Every structure is written in C-alpha cells, then in structure tokens.
C-alpha cells in the first residue's frame, strides 16, 4: 500500500520547504520527503532576491524593478513580480525572526570576506551590522576560527567605502576549546551559558566573552562577531552581550557550516510542522511509475522500495551541489525523472577559461513553462502533474546574480500553491 498525500514535495531545502508550506497553507494534504540534509545548512542565511542583473549590473537598489527586464527564460519571468512579492510575504510570516520586509530596497550586509552583499531579508541578529548604518564598528574574530580574520575583514570593508570606521581585533574564545571546535560547540556553550574557566575562576560563557572584548572596545558603537552566537537562543545571547558591552551586537554570516542557515532550516521545518505537513527525511526517491502523469514515486529504505503516491508532485531537489542536477562526460541530467536539462553538446562549451567567467553550467537546470512544469527537448511538458522549484531550475546564475534564496522561495511558493489548487 502506498503512502498517500495530495501533494508530494521532493526536497527539503529552501525551495522544497517553501513549496510544502505554500501548499499546506492552501489547505492541501502535503508530504515532504528529503534525502539528506540540504544545502540550506551551507548557505549564509541571508535571503536575497536579486543583487545584480544577468548582465552583471549592480548592486541593484530595487530588485523588483529589475525583474521585468531579466531574460525570458529566467525563473522570475516565469512567475512574475507579484508572485515574488507574495512569496516573500509567506516567508515573512513563517520566519518572524527575519527583518527587511519594511522596504523594497535591498539591504547591504557585510560578509565574512569583508565584501558587501545586497539582500532582501536578513536575520535579526545581523541587523545591527547593516553597511548603510554610519556607526563605527568593532569586528571581533576568534583566534581558532580562521574563516573570519577580523582585521582583514575590517580592511576590506574600509576599501569598499562603507560610511563608518571599521576595526578588527582577534581574541581567544574563553574556555580553552579545541582548535577545531565546531560552530555548534561555541553555540552550545553560549546557549546554555555554561561556566568556563578564566584564570582559575569559573565565569558564565556570555560574561566571559564580553570580558575579553570589553578592553578592546574604544569608541565604536557596535560590535560584530562571526555567526556563532547560539543556535537555540541567539536573541538572548546578543542581549546579554549588549548589556555587558553597552553597545549593539551583531553577527556576520559565515560560510559552511552556517549557524544562520541551520536556524533558518529549523524555523522553516517547524513552520511546516505547524502547518500540518508530514515530513520524512533520510531516504532517497529512486524511481517512479507513470507516463504522461506521475502515478507514484519509490523511496528506498534499507533495500526496500516504499511507494508514495500523490495527485501533484513538486521537484525541489537542488542544483549541482544539492545533486538535483548531475553531469558526467556524456551530458547533464536530472536523476529522478530524467527531465530534460538543456545544455551544450560539447562539454568544453559548458565553462569558460576564467575561474569567475560567465560559465554556462551555472545556468543549467530544467526548463519549464509558465506553470513551472518541466519541458522536454521539444518543449512539451514532461509530466502534467510535476512542477519544479528552486535550484533544480535552469536559466539563472544565482551566485552571480545573488538571487538563490529569492528564486527558491518564489518558485517554491508558486509550485506549491498551484499544486495545491490543482489537487483540490
């Protein structure tokens, strides 16, 4: 007997989660299946919509204004500007710990490399760090965390011409953690505010951290840390540090593994649970039944193939990194349904010679109609009840455009909502 639902979403990243959430809020009986943990845990946790045009113009002030001029095969053009806005509203409602919804204008956030990223939404923990804010800034790095070299980041920020003075200092994290301590180790220590030994005395971790920073603080009005300030209680930790230091505290989003990404994933999974969807993670979808219409998919579990059937399906399995799109010497393909992925025949045309060149492969993914149904090589829809969302889609280069989160949320929303409406 198959496990049944009205809408089955395959993939547990930003696209899949938004899709399932949109479908569930539309009233559908939704099931989300995800193989392993998604690339969302590797993402910065910043939610961008569009930072640069496909031609590289930017940073853009108003992402919505630029959408109608994007190339026709761009996913934003498929769903339209209003859907992007509606999708962001759903996100704002589901993840109340994010800010940025008060304006259409892109916010400018400092990155852990010291560059500035245009973004539409950001975690509350990053908001005191906005680059448009004129308050002078102290950045504090942790000696063992080589990913965030505070003096270097401060110098880079200066070079971008930010309207404030930035200075970097490096400290040893109190408590003698191992040199390669995980971000979750720092977070846990601060979450629980456990006592750490400082010169033979036991001091609560938050206080001990503030004590290390206090003597370094000159007349800066805010202090930035790498994003390690707690997993469960980041707000309380920032408040405690602010009280000890007497100035605002913010986090600079970091590379993988990323706590802001983890927190965002947790927030979306709990919103999805509250919306009543069923969720299964850990096992891959390996096969399906159906010709013009998908009848059921099979999930492999310890060698058994468990059938799952639904009226409507959403493919949100990710791009090359998430393994929703794969390639070998013979070509580029979508591994579950073998949806057509348009690509150059000669694989030496897939990329450019320069590392940061305009690589074609960055835009590889399934092509869809305006209803987000994947198209075959002759531009007919592959299956009448399958829609695609997120990085599995082609036609855009999220790294260059800074549009990854926005496309996942907008197409996830559209695919989920339409799947739910059709399943009724």
């Amino acid at each position, binding site marked *: *007997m198959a*496990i049944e639902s009205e809408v089955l979403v395959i993939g547990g990243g930003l696209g899949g989660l938004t899709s399932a959430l949109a479908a569930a809020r539309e009233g559908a009986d939704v099931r989300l299946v995800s*193989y*392993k*943990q*998604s*690339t969302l*845990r*590797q993402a910065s946790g910043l939610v961008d919509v569009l930072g640069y045009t496909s031609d590289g113009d930017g940073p853009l002030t108003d992402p919505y204004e630029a959408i109608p001029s994007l190339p026709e095969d761009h996913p934003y053009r498929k769903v339209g500007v209003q859907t992007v806005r509606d999708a962001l509203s759903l996100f704002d409602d589901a993840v109340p710990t994010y800010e940025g919804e008060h304006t259409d204008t892109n916010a400018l956030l400092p990155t852990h490399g010291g560059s500035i990223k245009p973004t539409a939404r950001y975690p509350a923990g990053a908001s005191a760090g906005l680059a448009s804010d004129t308050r002078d800034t102290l950045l504090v790095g942790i000696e063992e965390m080589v990913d965030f070299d505070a003096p270097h980041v401060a110098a880079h920020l200066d070079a971008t011409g930010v309207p404030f003075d930035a200075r970097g200092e490096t400290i040893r994290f109190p408590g*003698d*953690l*191992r040199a*390669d*301590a*995980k*971000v*979750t*180790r720092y*977070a*846990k220590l601060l979450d629980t505010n456990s006592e750490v030994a400082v010169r033979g005395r036991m001091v609560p971790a938050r206080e001990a951290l503030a004590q290390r920073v206090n003597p370094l603080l000159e007349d800066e009005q805010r202090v930035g840390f790498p994003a390690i300030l707690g997993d469960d209680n980041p707000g309380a930790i920032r408040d405690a540090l602010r009280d000890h230091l007497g100035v605002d505290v913010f986090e600079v989003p970091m590379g*993988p*593994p990323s706590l802001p990404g*983890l927190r965002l994933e947790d927030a979306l999974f709990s919103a999805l649970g509250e919306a009543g969807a069923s969720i299964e*993670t*850990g096992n891959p979808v390996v096969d399906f039944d159906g010709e013009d219409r998908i009848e059921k998919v099979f999930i492999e*579990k*310890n*060698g*058994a193939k*468990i059938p799952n059937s639904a009226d409507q399906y959403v493919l949100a399995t990710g791009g090359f990194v*998430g*393994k929703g799109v794969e390639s070998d*010497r013979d070509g580029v393909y979508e591994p579950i349904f073998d949806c057509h992925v348009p690509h150059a025949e000669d*694989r*030496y045309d897939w*990329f*450019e*010679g320069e590392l940061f060149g305009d690589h074609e492969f960055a835009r590889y993914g399934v092509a869809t109609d305006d209803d987000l149904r994947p198209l075959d090589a002759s531009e007919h829809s592959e299956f009448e009840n399958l829609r695609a969302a997120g990085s599995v889609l082609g036609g855009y280069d999220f790294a260059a455009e800074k549009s990854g989160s926005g496309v996942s949320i907008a197409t996830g929303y559209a695919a989920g909502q339409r799947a739910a409406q059709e399943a009724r």
Partner: protein
Amino acid sequence: MSDAETPPDFDPVAPNTGEEFEPVDVFPDSDDFDLRPGADSCYKCSTCDTNCPVAEVDDDFPGPKFQGPEQWRLKQSDDDHEIDDSVMDCSNCMRCDNACPSGVPLSQMHNTARGEYVSEQMDKLSVEYIRNRILANYRTSAFFASKVPRLANFAMNFGPARWVMEKTLGVTSERDFPAFAKQTFRDWWADRGGQVQSRENARAARKRRGLPEDAEKKVAYFHGCYSNYNTPEVGKAMVRVYEEFGYEVVAPEQKCSGTPMFANGMLDDARRHAETNVSSMSELVDEGYHAIASCTSCSMALRQEYPELFSIPGTAKVAANASPASTNSAQK
C-alpha cells in the same frame, strides 16, 4: 596548462583503453570492509559535525568528519595508521548518517574504526576494556538479574556498591541503574499463550473491524533486551496495539541486537548475536512476516548495521522487511 583547456594529444570522449590497458587495482579484493573509497565522497561541508551531539559538548572529541572520512583517508596511504582513541567517545547515535549530503557511510566508518581500535589497540586487561565488555554484554547481566529482580534492583542502587563501581570501573554513581521488571516480557508472553493466543486475538480484531478474517497480517516482534528485562509494559502495549489492528504477533528467538556492542567496538560479540537474530527473523520473513522493533536502536541494527558490518546470509532480506514499530510500513 589549465584543466579548462583541451590537451592536444588526449581525446576525452574516447580515452586510450586499448588491449594494453590494465586498470590499476587501487583497492585489492578483500573480505574486510574497505571504506576508503567512500571517504572520497566527502567534500568536507561539515554538515555531519553540526549534527553531532558529542562534538557540541566534548572538547576532546574531533567530530564525525574526522572520525569517518578523514581518518579513512589517512589509512588510504598508510595501512598501519592507528585509529585515534577519540572514536570511543562517539555515542553511535547515527545522526551523521542522516546528515551527509554525499551519502558517506559515516556510522559504518565509525563502527569499523572502533572495532579495529578495540581489537588491535586496546589493552584487554585495562579497566576500560573490562567495563565496556560488561556493559556491552548487558543481556547477560540482565538475564541473571532478572532471576532475582528485587535483589538486583537493591544491589545496583546500593550506595557502597556504587561507590566501589565508580572507583574500580569508572561507572558514575550519579546515575540510577534502571530497575529490572518482576516479570520479563517473554515470561508474560508465554503465560499469555504465545503465538496461538495472538493469532486468536488478531482474528477476533479483524472480525470486529470488518477485515477479511484470513488476511495475511502478521509481524515478527523484535522486543530487544530492555523491553524484555526492564520495561515489559512497552512490549505488552506493542503486542496489544498490533493485535487491535488485526495483526498476529510472534516473538521469535532473539538475542541482543548488538547495539551496545557496536557502541563499544565489540564486533565479534555483536556478530554472534546478530547471527541468531538474522537466522530467526529471515525464516519468518520467508513465511510472510514483517519484522518490527519497538526499540529504535534495535531497529537500526536490523535495518542498517547488520548489512553494513556483517555478511550473514539473509541480512539484506531482513533489512528490507523490517521497520520501527511506530511506522506503518508493515501495512502491506
């Protein structure tokens, strides 16, 4: 020359694989599990590390990415590379398996490394080894304790005895030992009439529910040691729930699932127990039974660890036909 340029004398579409071509045997055939190829699937995203409940609290523990792929990579160039003793701090929760976006068999790597560490590097006369061996073979001590549950419960939580255990074996006196039940699950099951009674109950329930009375609804229940000796109420409830839904239950011959043995690197002990479990479970699977376990780690042992660690005939069949008792995969 950059990799991005086509080399002049090499056609990537049709590489030179003429008669002269002999593939290099990087990993020679061996009966042992060789996990080094799997280590190369790791792209070091550290998702496993962020899921590890030990690494977030223990400053001596380097995390699953080191324990698994990094350590196996070190073995790639050096067969004599010694296993780091920190592998003994892994709690074998297997969360890293569920995390890895590249499908690296992390817990299999940990279990194998731990087994190798214990068999080749650990001092068999050390207190740690003796203690771990006793704790890993919980079923044996529980078997004797269950004969005299009141005495055992008193002795195991008797202050002076716990003080001695802490001093000699390093078993903390802060934790209470779980109480042994006055009647084991299996004794209850036998008193109740075993499989014959269950068949009648299931048949009556099917009639009540309007299901075909001769429906093939039957499960083989792996209750595990803890339900048997400590919390038989769990096992009894499991039987009643399944019967209520019309399933006939059998409680086949079984030993320890091996979970505490994997966690302590005692793979030989675990294999002996697994052989019994696989043999009795696979016969029942052949007869149309679906295997269920109320204990999640026992269920993981049947479904994942046996196939990953042992080549016992029938293992794959049992794994494909087993599920945790709380999921509905048995509804076939």
